[in-house]
């Protein structure tokens, strides 16, 4: 087992990783930017190294400083969390070169799956259903338009290097295509430094259903059920639940096995997620693969009774996954609400500042993943997440009621939060019936 791990991240995921390490008896090294000197992850780790000023570019994205910190403290492995360097194949390669275990898949896998157009190609070859679209990237505007006509409008223009909802445009009419393509391409160039684009058929109002994958270094790959993440505002997830209200045993088996096939096609190691679009006819299509642990991993943990972070560490330490596919049972229902420091009435404007009063909810089946404490100042330089509130009930109804109850106990003063907005979702008739898709927030709240 690894003896010392450096956590190349911050906030609640850094705390999550440190917790898993502490429970496994592994020494932890936190890295922090100057503004995170008093952050929770910095304080609870065994050692902490300052890696630069507040700006992410100079600290949490500073590969050189992070590698130096690893060598300095003698850490054997780096857990990159999510975001930051977690899907940076160059960083993963650097770790390999320095004999540092990168807790995640191989650099080559990250490269292949990180390029959305390339990933599509690989999936098509592996016989995984993909959204009808171009095979690989398009060669410029003319080619793109030709392909769009072939696929049939409405289409979605997407950036190969894209993520976080950027570099994407939906085009309903032919006449809007050229402009949309050019703006999407420019956006991609500016945001990701890569303007290769591809086209997909736009599937109207699908559900976003993703499958959790675990693979070890011995070729064993299995799936741990699904998460329904259709509740999104501007392609950012707001609320997630497991299992999906529309999932059947049969469909889960079909999609899960497809997910495993996709992961096997790239020799996947460690934790990952295959994102599918599920349309109203029950047909599903591969959308993309996230080669890291995800924000919403807790709901999978609750319904399968696993600790995904510990599994990641064990796999990285060279252990075979200790259970088989048939051992995985989905039981009960879990919901996660992302609590952010933002003001829904003011266009979800981020609201950094000091948390003057804080009370976390409690009770049976309530879990909080957070890095904030009373008196903590949420810095403006990073994302606005305050906490993830996760509830687990024996069925969906119990989970829903529990979430409403828990949100009621959640006290945060000093910053604005989206708790009221979460209430609106939970009290929405369509949501209560489980009848929603990715167009939900747009439709119900006109956002």
């Amino acid at each position, binding site marked *: *087992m*690894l*003896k010392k791990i450096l956590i190349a991240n911050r906030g609640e995921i850094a705390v999550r990783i440190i917790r898993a390490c*502490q*429970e*496994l*008896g592994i*020494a932890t090294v936190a890295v922090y930017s100057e503004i995170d000197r*008093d952050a*929770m992850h910095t*304080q*609870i780790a*065994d050692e902490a190294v300052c890696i630069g000023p507040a700006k992410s570019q100079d600290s949490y994205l500073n*590969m*050189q400083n992070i*590698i130096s910190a*690893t*060598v300095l403290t*003698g*850490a*054997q492995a780096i857990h990159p969390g999510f975001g930051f360097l977690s899907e940076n194949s*160059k960083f993963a*390669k*650097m770790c390999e*070169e*320095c*004999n*540092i*275990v990168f807790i995640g898949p191989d650099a080559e896998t990250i490269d292949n799956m990180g390029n959305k157009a390339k990933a599509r190609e690989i999936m098509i070859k592996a016989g995984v259903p993909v959204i009808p679209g171009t095979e690989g990237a398009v060669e410029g505007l003319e080619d793109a338009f030709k392909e769009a006509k072939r696929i049939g409008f409405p289409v979605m223009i997407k950036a190969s290097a894209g993520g976080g909802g950027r570099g994407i445009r939906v085009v309903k009419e032919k006449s809007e295509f050229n402009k949309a393509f050019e703006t999407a391409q420019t956006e991609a160039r500016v945001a990701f430094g890569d303007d290769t684009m591809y086209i997909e058929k736009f599937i109207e109002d699908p559900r976003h259903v993703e499958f959790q994958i675990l693979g070890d270094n011995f070729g064993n790959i299995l799936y741990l059920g699904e998460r329904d993440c259709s509740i999104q505002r501007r392609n950012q997830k707001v609320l997630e639940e497991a299992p999906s209200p529309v999932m059947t045993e049969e469909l889960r088996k079909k999609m899960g096995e497809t997910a495993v096939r996709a992961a096997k096609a790239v020799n996947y190691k460690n934790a990952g997620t295959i994102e599918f679009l599920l349309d109203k006819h029950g047909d599903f299509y591969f959308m993309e693969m996230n080669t890291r642990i995800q924000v919403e991993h807790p709901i999978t943990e609750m319904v399968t009774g696993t600790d995904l972070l510990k599994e990641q560490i*064990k796999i990285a*330490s*060279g*252990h075979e996954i200790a259970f088989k596919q048939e051992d995985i049972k989905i039981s009960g229902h879990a919901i996660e609400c992302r609590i952010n420091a933002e003001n829904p009435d003011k266009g979800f404007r981020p609201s950094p500042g000091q948390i003057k009063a804080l009370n976390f909810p409690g009770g049976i089946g309530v879990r909080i993943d957070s890095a904030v*404490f009373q*008196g903590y100042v949420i810095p403006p330089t990073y994302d606005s997440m305050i906490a993830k509130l996760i509830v687990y009930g024996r069925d969906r109804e119990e989970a829903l009621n529990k979430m409403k109850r828990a949100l009621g106990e959640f006290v945060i003063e000093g910053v604005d939060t989206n708790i009221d907005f979460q209430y609106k979702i939970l009290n929405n008739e369509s949501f209560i019936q489980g009848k929603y898709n990715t167009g939900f927030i747009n439709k119900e709240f006109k956002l």
Partner: protein
Amino acid sequence: MGLFRKRKYITISNTKISDDDILGEQQPIIPDGMWVKCPKCGRILYNKDLEENQKVCGNCNAHIRLTARERIELTLDKGSFVEFDADMKSHNPLDFPEYEVKTTAMTEKTGINEAVITGMGTIGGKQTVIAVMDSHFMMASMGSVVGEKITRAIETATGKELPIIIFTASGGARMQEGMFSLMQMAKTSSALAKHDEKGLLYITVLTDPTTGGVTASFAMLGDIILSEPGALVGFAGRRVIQQTLQEELPEEFQSAEFLLQHGFIDKVVERAKLKDLLEQLLCT
């Protein structure tokens, strides 16, 4: 101040897993050469990034010195290079003490026999003779072998009616060979004169550093003289000139940009743009 009490963690006994030695003793090691310090701005650079950028510092644009082989790789079309006189080695005509030891050591260090690699190849499909001096070999000082190899390259170009491009770098004439070294200045220049008589094109690319006898001979004879940004180009050393003239010299003295201003070179070219420019020049 810390809200959380730092507790020395109590050893947790995980009997199911701890009785293994998988990865127990693995330590991080940074391999040699993975990180390189820029000689100009001191920024630490990742070697792969530096290579991808043709060994130009991404931070301050310092054009770090290339080896002759690296230069040929970057400039000529892939697979087109044919080398001349690869086995030519220096003797010790003046019986200069320690000279043979030095050249042997240099060959071991750099993997090449002398301070210049000559041959021919294509740039953008256009055939040309090329000579590239390598400052890593005894500061690319010019002795008999360097002079002879360059002269032969020029003569081959003259014979085949081809243009010639010479990438210069040098600390000056090779001391250990005395007059033989100085003679190379005349030898190379007269070979160039014959090349010129035939109306053929000679392009010099001055690289950092180009000084002494090389500057005073073939380096400044190009029909077109190019240079890399920030290259040191001069004849005598700065200090010697300062002492002789008893005058303060400007900061940028002997830089490529300074020479450009004073009409000694035709153009300062970024390394990334050099191949394209050479291709253009060869096509005219």
